[in-house]
């Protein structure tokens, strides 16, 4: 069986790490493709999290149009939490668009594709899909997946408890992913075939520091996992041959964590956010005493009157509140006196509504009160310097903490290996869907 277009995405692998692994022989199969074709760095999205990155990749549009700004969000009109996923998305993704053109498509484990929408092909959800039955379209595919003990996702809770158990679990999850990949690849002819590997992001989160420090046990284990991925890439390349257009890429880079920054706590300590009497979740705030609050990572919202329930900042005061927040955020220092923030972005500089493509030029009162998906964006996006991972921690005791997490996401250095497809000189993950569509439909 032949496939017309192949995508393999490997979550959270930075360009620099990939370059190192091409040179030291950890990933020889992918290195050969990279050498003969294209290998570049690629920009991610803001905020730099997988849900937003993959939603942007799949729809090819700005978050101001597709609505996914992070793993958690405000439930519209309340102070409840919402978990954005494919059901809350306000733009069609590439599997839907290609299906509409009669193409046969396959997607497996790509974040933000759960719950699956009907397509012409097979779509298998991943991270945050609760079980195989719910994760799969069409639903009868779940029988095969259960028969091989397919793993939707590795067990992140395990990673916090036992690193060796985590590694075994990552291997098993990867093996099952490729077992399913080869099954579907052999089964029929596909116009578009995209499989995602999430384990790389997990191993980076939990072992990045040990890798950098050449830990005698876990640094070799780290590279062994990547070598396992490359072995599968070798098998895949052999199956599809030399002529099929191919993209292998990540959605963001990684670097070592110096501090996790409990930004919600900082907002409370600095008088921006007043917590509710009982803190049950990250939005347990008292709106009557809250000028601004935040969600992970670094998404700062002004409590605008008429937009937020019980909002107290008038749209006329919106811009001055934002300026004051930017000033204070930029002045924030870690316990050693180092600056924490790299920059703070105003939402209209990177997000835009559907009717105003490109950065939106709007007066601030309009920005403050704009409805729709653009209106759901954070008013400011705080971008930290490398090493400062912005978290929540509204009920935490300290702003700067350290946990089992060793690595954090970075914006400028995802990677791309591509053959047989023309891409922009400057790569951004949001701009891939167009060239892929053109290629598949050509």
């Amino acid at each position, binding site marked *: 069986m032949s496939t017309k277009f192949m995508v393999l995405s490997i979550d959270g692998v930075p360009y620099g790490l990939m370059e190192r692994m091409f040179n030291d022989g950890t990933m020889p199969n992918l290195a050969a493709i990279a050498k003969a074709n294209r290998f570049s760095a690629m920009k991610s999205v803001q905020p730099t*999290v997988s849900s937003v990155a993959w939603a942007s990749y799949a729809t090819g549009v700005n978050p101001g149009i597709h609505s996914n700004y992070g*793993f*958690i969000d405000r439930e519209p009109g309340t*102070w409840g*939490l919402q*978990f954005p996923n494919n059901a809350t998305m306000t733009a069609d993704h590439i599997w839907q668009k290609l299906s509409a053109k009669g193409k046969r498509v396959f997607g497996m484990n790509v974040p933000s594709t759960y719950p699956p929408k009907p397509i012409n092909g097979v779509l298998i959800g991943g*991270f*945050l899909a*609760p079980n195989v039955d719910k994760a799969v379209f069409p639903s009868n595919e779940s029988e095969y997946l259960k028969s091989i003990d397919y793993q939707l*996702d590795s067990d*992140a*809770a395990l*990673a*916090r408890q036992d690193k060796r158990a985590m590694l075994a679990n990552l291997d098993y999850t990867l093996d099952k992913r490729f077992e399913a990949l080869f099954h579907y690849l052999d089964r029929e002819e596909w116009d578009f075939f995209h499989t995602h590997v999430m384990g790389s992001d*997990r191993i980076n*989160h939990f072992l990045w520091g040990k890798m950098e420090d050449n830990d005698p046990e876990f640094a070799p284990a780290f590279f062994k996992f990547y070598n396992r991925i490359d072995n599968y890439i070798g098998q895949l390349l052999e199956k599809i041959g030399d002529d099929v257009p191919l993209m292998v890429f990540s959605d963001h880079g990684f670097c070592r964590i110096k501090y*996790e920054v409990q930004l919600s706590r900082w907002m409370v300590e600095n008088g921006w956010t007043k*917590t*509710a*009497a*009982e*803190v*049950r*979740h*990250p939005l347990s705030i*008292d*709106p*009557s005493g809250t000028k601004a609050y935040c969600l*992970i990572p670094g998404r700062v919202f002004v409590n605008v009157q008429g937009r937020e*329930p*019980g909002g107290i900042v008038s749209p006329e005061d919106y811009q001055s509140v934002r300026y004051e927040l930017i000033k204070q955020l930029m002045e924030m220092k870690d316990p050693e006196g180092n600056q924490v923030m790299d920059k703070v972005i105003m939402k209209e500089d990177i997000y835009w509504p559907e009717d105003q493509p490109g950065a939106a030029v709007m007066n601030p009162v309009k920005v403050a009160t704009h409805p729709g998906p653009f209106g759901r964006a954070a008013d400011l996006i705080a971008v930290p310097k490398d090493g400062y*991972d912005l*978290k*929540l*921690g509204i*009920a*935490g005791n300290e702003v700067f903490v350290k*946990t089992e*997490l060793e690595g954090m996401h970075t914006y400028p250095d995802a990677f791309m290996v591509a053959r047989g497809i023309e891409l922009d000189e400057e790569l951004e993950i949001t701009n891939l869907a167009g060239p892929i569509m053109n290629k598949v439909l050509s």
Partner: protein
Amino acid sequence: MDRLDALEAQSIYIIREAYYHYKNVALLWSIGKDSTTLAWLTRKAFFGKVPFKALHIDTSYKFPEMYRFRDEYSKKWGFDLVVSRNEEAIAAGMSNEKKLDCCNALKTEGLKQAIAKHGFEALLLGIRRDEHGVRAKERFFSPRNEEFKWNYQDQPPELWDQYKNQAEEKTHIRVHPLLGWTELDIWEYIKRENIPITELYFSKEGKRFRSIGCVPCCSPIESNASNVDEIIYELKHTNTSERAGRAQDKEDTFTMQKLRALGYM
């Protein structure tokens, strides 16, 4: 020992532990089925005479049936009843449009005032783990700090019945003897013990309340269950959640656990 006996024994043990460890305990009685069951168990724990105060936080918006029930049974059961009202907020008038503010002022502030006035160190509450996703993180003994904040990310582990009942100063402890009970357990126990319960739970003209609180924020469900047996039958044959309209609770809990493990929450 059947399930109800085991639940009863565990709850009574926790109630007695709380009384043993804290000088000033109060039973928080909201007049609903859970806290009334808790009141019943507390009476059993001390052979009919509760040795501490019962506390009702009165928002002034409760159903008339609840006030009647409170006064009747408080007297019958010999409770040393404290009714706490945030008079200032009630006088200022709270609006139903701002539910969070309203609950905050009338319930939480009312409770704070009562704690300040009476110096309660521990409160017995009738919450259950199956009520709502976040309550799965509760413990039998859950400390609240001075500002009343409950840090759900930092709860003491309770393993093998080693309850953590020591707390730092300036906190009060919330004790949850009913944590392991389900809604159905409560009704089966009410039936077994013949516990009196307000008539709001029983169907009138095809509707009944499944959980009760303040009038403006409660709506009845469609039901013909007009006695305890019929309610038990109904619960065994329905899938809707006690807090109907929140059908996403279970999946959200799964999502939250996943995100928490990765530090995204």
